[in-house]
């Protein structure tokens, strides 16, 4: 068959074949974005107001306007390793939590597509996840110990707004030493009212030991995870966990 074709026809055929290959290659490469989704390797903590994960990935236009408005620079954009989640915002609470320094969920207001749903306008309405006491045995309060010094060391870059120091501007946590008789950092720095409490561990009034108990009001912002002075934090946010679920 092929020998009946003229040279021009052969070149043309070759070009079309190459185009099909190149096109299929391009589509194939883009579909590799499925892999991290299926593997669900990266269970990311999303900014306040994020829709359910699948809708969130679909509706996010990957522009980073939420990154730009965050006063504590908590929001990062995911890289190619997140597949279809490339350019989608996430937080790493341990490095920099959302502490609602902006007061008015600025990231939600900045979102052009409603991937961060415009239905919420107060920090109390946010639901990013729930804090969990993941390493209770290491918890200083549970051991009845105090805490003196810098919560995360002198090199820690994370910032937090201390209302009593500066109502408007977050400062470095490394610039704010503590001297606590009993460590209550997770409760002390929690930006949500009644989201976490310290409860006694026994009926004995001389027993100093207290345990942090997460309440229903917890929004999963990760402030407790960031401020926990124990290396490998005792308390961590479980992404998208709902109150009352296992």
């Amino acid at each position, binding site marked *: 068959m092929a020998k009946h074709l003229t040279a021009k026809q052969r070149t043309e055929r070759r070009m079309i074949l190459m*185009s099909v290959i190149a096109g299929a290659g391009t589509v194939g490469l883009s579909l590799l974005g499925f892999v991290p989704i299926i593997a669900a390797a990266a269970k990311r903590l999303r900014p306040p107001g994020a829709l359910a994960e699948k809708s969130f990935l*679909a509706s996010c236009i990957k522009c980073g306007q939420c990154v730009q408005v965050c006063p504590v620079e908590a929001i990062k954009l995911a890289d*190619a390793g997140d597949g279809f989640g490339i*350019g989608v915002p996430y937080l790493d609470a341990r490095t920099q939590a959302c502490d609602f320094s902006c007061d008015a969920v600025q990231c939600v207001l*900045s979102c052009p*597509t409603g991937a961060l749903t415009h239905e919420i306008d107060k920090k109390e309405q946010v639901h990013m996840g729930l804090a969990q006491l993941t390493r209770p045995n290491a918890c200083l309060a549970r051991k009845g110990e105090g805490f003196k010094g810098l919560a995360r060391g002198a090199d820690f870059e994370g910032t937090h707004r201390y209302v009593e120091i500066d109502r408007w501007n977050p400062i470095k946590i490394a610039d704010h030493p503590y001297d606590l008789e009993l460590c209550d950092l997770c409760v002390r720095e929690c930006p949500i009212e009644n989201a976490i409490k310290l409860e006694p561990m026994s009926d004995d009034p001389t027993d100093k030991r207290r345990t942090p108990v997460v309440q229903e009001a917890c929004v999963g912002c990760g402030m407790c995870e960031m401020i926990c002075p124990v290396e490998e934090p005792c308390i961590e946010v479980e992404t998208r966990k709902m109150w009352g679920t296992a």
Partner: protein
Amino acid sequence: MNRFIDSLRIMLGGAPHRPEKEDFTEEAAALHRFKQTPEQKKLRVAAIKAEFEDKEKSHKWRNLRWASIIIVNLMFIVSFHFDVQLVEGALTASRFVGFHMADLNSSLQVVLAHKEILINLVIGTVTVALVWWLVGGRSFCSWVCPYHLVAEFAEKIHLWLAEKKLVSDHEFHRGMRPALYVIFAVLAFVTGYTVFETISPVGILSRALIYGASLALIWVVVLLLIEIFYSRRFWCRYACPIGLTYGFVGSVSPVAVRYDLQHCLHEGECRKVCMVPHVLEMTKKQRATDLKIDIGADCTRCGMCVDACPTGALTFKLRGTGGLL
């Protein structure tokens, strides 16, 4: 109207046809005949020879354009790093002094994947569509897109290597771009993910410029290597759905490059520099069906041909304003 449909057909990958006899206006036919007389042929050869003797290349439009790409992208970068609220966001979606802007193709992907429409997105999309309709559609590609700029440098290297016979250009079928356009639209709708954004070099590059380097830049580098060593301007010519979206917008745009048959000596300089030379088919001998023709929808209004044309036969024009501008 016929020419308009033909320009869309060519943008979608169709090969330009040699025009039929009845397509030519009387004036154009007469001018073509006149240019074919032995006397005129001689004059033409002499004129071209003279052109190449005192050849001083103009780069006016290219320099303006490079300035535009750099300034626009710099505005994004500066807005973020110095917290001046000028253009917040990235090229996929942004706020220009508070006003919503959204890239048409990114919006399309989001709407198809999410299957809901948000009012801010509509505002941003309509604004952007209007802006780019006004200034020429694919002018987005050549006047704003950061990938276009780096691809131009890759193209220079490619042409330099090609001149040394170290590489050669491999053409692909331009029908690949509309095919990819449809495939990515269907994929967004069916999977519910913005699949194209995973490999969009425009989004990747824009975000990397603003928010810092990313691993995804490897893909941009791979594309540039393909363009240097294998196929000239591969992504912009044969693949990018964003270019096609803006091509549709620009098909009815008032800003266009206009071809003037009377001034043309058919040297072919314009087609050599053009990223989409199929839009310049009428500059070949005996092809222009009218004395003046506006270049078709796929034209990026980059002005390379305007710079390259030795006789000023190609110029930027505002359609519908007569001789006003």
